[in-house]
């Protein structure tokens, strides 16, 4: 190849907002000097802009630079607080374990900027055409809700308004049909309507909704599914740093003791437990396969 002296991955990292300040400054100086490099940057930017606006699936990244610092408008805060208060006041919630939501997993992805992978709408779990979600077992509902809540956060933080709105509506439908689910569904309805709001504005509502959704269903399954979906996204984007965190090992240890897991989950968890403590780059093919299988089992 006869190309300008530029590392394509550095350029991609600039576009994803993942360069350190010094690297970014150096690369911008290079772009200012090199029309050839600038042309590549411009082509890539135009193509990403076109594809992202068309598909609504692979979404632009929001870097800390791009994320505005606006605060939640008071009326919006009040509405969210009322909804959250109603949801959390339900008697069901007091009977369940604490910290069931998977917010920590999606937050870890967000730190490095995350994208919804292409084909995210092709869910790993078994679906029957025309089937209604009312027929789902509580465990399957929890599995789906955990995974979808992670997708929703990623969509919100990457400013994929269409995907965020769609996912929030899906969660509302999933959770609205269960006893005491109406307040949680209402929170997701509000999130769907406000999908274009700044991520900082929506996040408190998403946190409350995820907390309530986990408690409303099967909290352990919900949490495990949230981890599995975050891991699936990290694996799809080949992010070894996500899997090097010790948190994965302790979560898998914890998951092996869950009594309410559906049949078929244990062998997949065992394979993941053997694979993930290994240092270095994971076996992506095996990870892709096992995480999809785990989600299929949890959500079916």
């Amino acid at each position, binding site marked *: 190849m*006869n190309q300008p002296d530029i590392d394509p991955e550095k350029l*991609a990292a600039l576009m*994803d907002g993942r360069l350190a300040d010094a690297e970014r400054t150096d690369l911008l100086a290079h772009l*200012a000097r090199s029309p050839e490099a600038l042309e*590549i940057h411009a082509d890539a930017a135009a193509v990403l802009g076109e*594809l992202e606006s068309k598909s609504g699936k692979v979404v632009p990244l929001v870097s800390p630079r791009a994320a505005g610092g606006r605060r939640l408008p008071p009326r919006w805060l009040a509405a969210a607080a009322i909804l959250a208060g109603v949801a959390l006041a339900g008697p069901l919630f007091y009977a369940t374990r604490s910290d069931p939501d998977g917010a920590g997993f999606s937050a870890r992805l967000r730190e490095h900027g995350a994208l919804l992978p292409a084909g995210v709408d092709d869910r790993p779990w078994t679906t029957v055409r025309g089937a209604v979600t009312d027929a789902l077992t509580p465990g399957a509902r929890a599995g789906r809700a955990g995974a979808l809540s992670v997708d929703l956060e990623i969509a919100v933080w990457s400013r994929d308004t269409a995907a965020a709105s769609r996912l929030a509506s899906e969660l509302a439908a999933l959770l609205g049909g269960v006893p005491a689910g109406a307040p949680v569904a209402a929170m997701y309805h509000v999130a769907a309507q406000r999908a274009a709001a700044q991520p900082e504005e929506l996040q408190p509502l998403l946190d409350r909704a995820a907390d309530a959704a986990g408690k409303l269903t099967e909290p352990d399954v919900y949490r495990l599914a949230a981890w599995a979906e975050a891991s699936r996204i990290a694996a799809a984007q080949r992010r070894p740093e996500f899997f090097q965190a010790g948190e994965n090992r302790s979560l898998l240890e914890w998951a092996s003791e869950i009594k309410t897991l559906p049949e078929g989950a244990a062998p997949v968890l065992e394979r993941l437990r053997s694979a993930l403590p290994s240092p270095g780059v994971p076996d*992506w093919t095996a990870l892709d396969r096992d995480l999809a299988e785990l989600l299929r089992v949890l959500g079916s």
Partner: protein
Amino acid sequence: MADRQSLEALFLAQLGWIERAAAAVCRRHGLSADESADFTSFAKLKLVENDYAVLARFRAESAITTYLVVVLSMLFRDYRAQHWGRWRPSAAARRQGGLAIRLETLVYRDRVPLGQAAEMLRSSGQTELSDRELAGVLAQLPARNSPRPTPVGSGLTGDPPAPNRSDDFLHAEEADTQERVIREALERLPAEDQVLLRLRFWEGLSVADIARSLGLPQKPLYRRLERAMTHARRLLEQAGMSKEYARAVLNE
């Protein structure tokens, strides 16, 4: 390093994205459906060859999708050079600024019919000029032979511009001076402002795409672009360029 099987799996998992991105690169450069299919095959071959060497070099410092789009943009330069040779905008286009460069590139390098090129420029917000006015801009540029073959029956929607003599009107030394003035004025801007102006006016990107590609918030970028243009115009005027010419260079 990842093994061949895992790289192949990554390639297959991203194949849909690769094809969509390759098609979008071709649309940006006005390629026909046949040319687009040809480039997509070329790009896939390059991604597969040497045991997926391009994918093996991926270090996960960016999203794989963004990396692939940058790689495809680079591969397009190779493809274009292999098929149609290398290209540089004319001195006259560089003196006239971004719109002229983009128009010249589309019409002469990419062999996009004038009407289609005009539509591409208008729809991307680079100009509001009519076909006739853009034909006038093109007429100020030297006629060039495109290295790209013209498909049979493609037909230009407008008459090709008359052979141009505008370069003859400017003494070579004067032309060089003007070009140097523009280059030096731009170089005095901060690097990020230079990139912003070039992306907006030379490469025709929307403000939204620029914001995304540089990780900047979009709303303040309008004000920032305006400030950078004012600064650049002032520098051009300080260098002795007339106000009108400076505005034309900056597409104002």
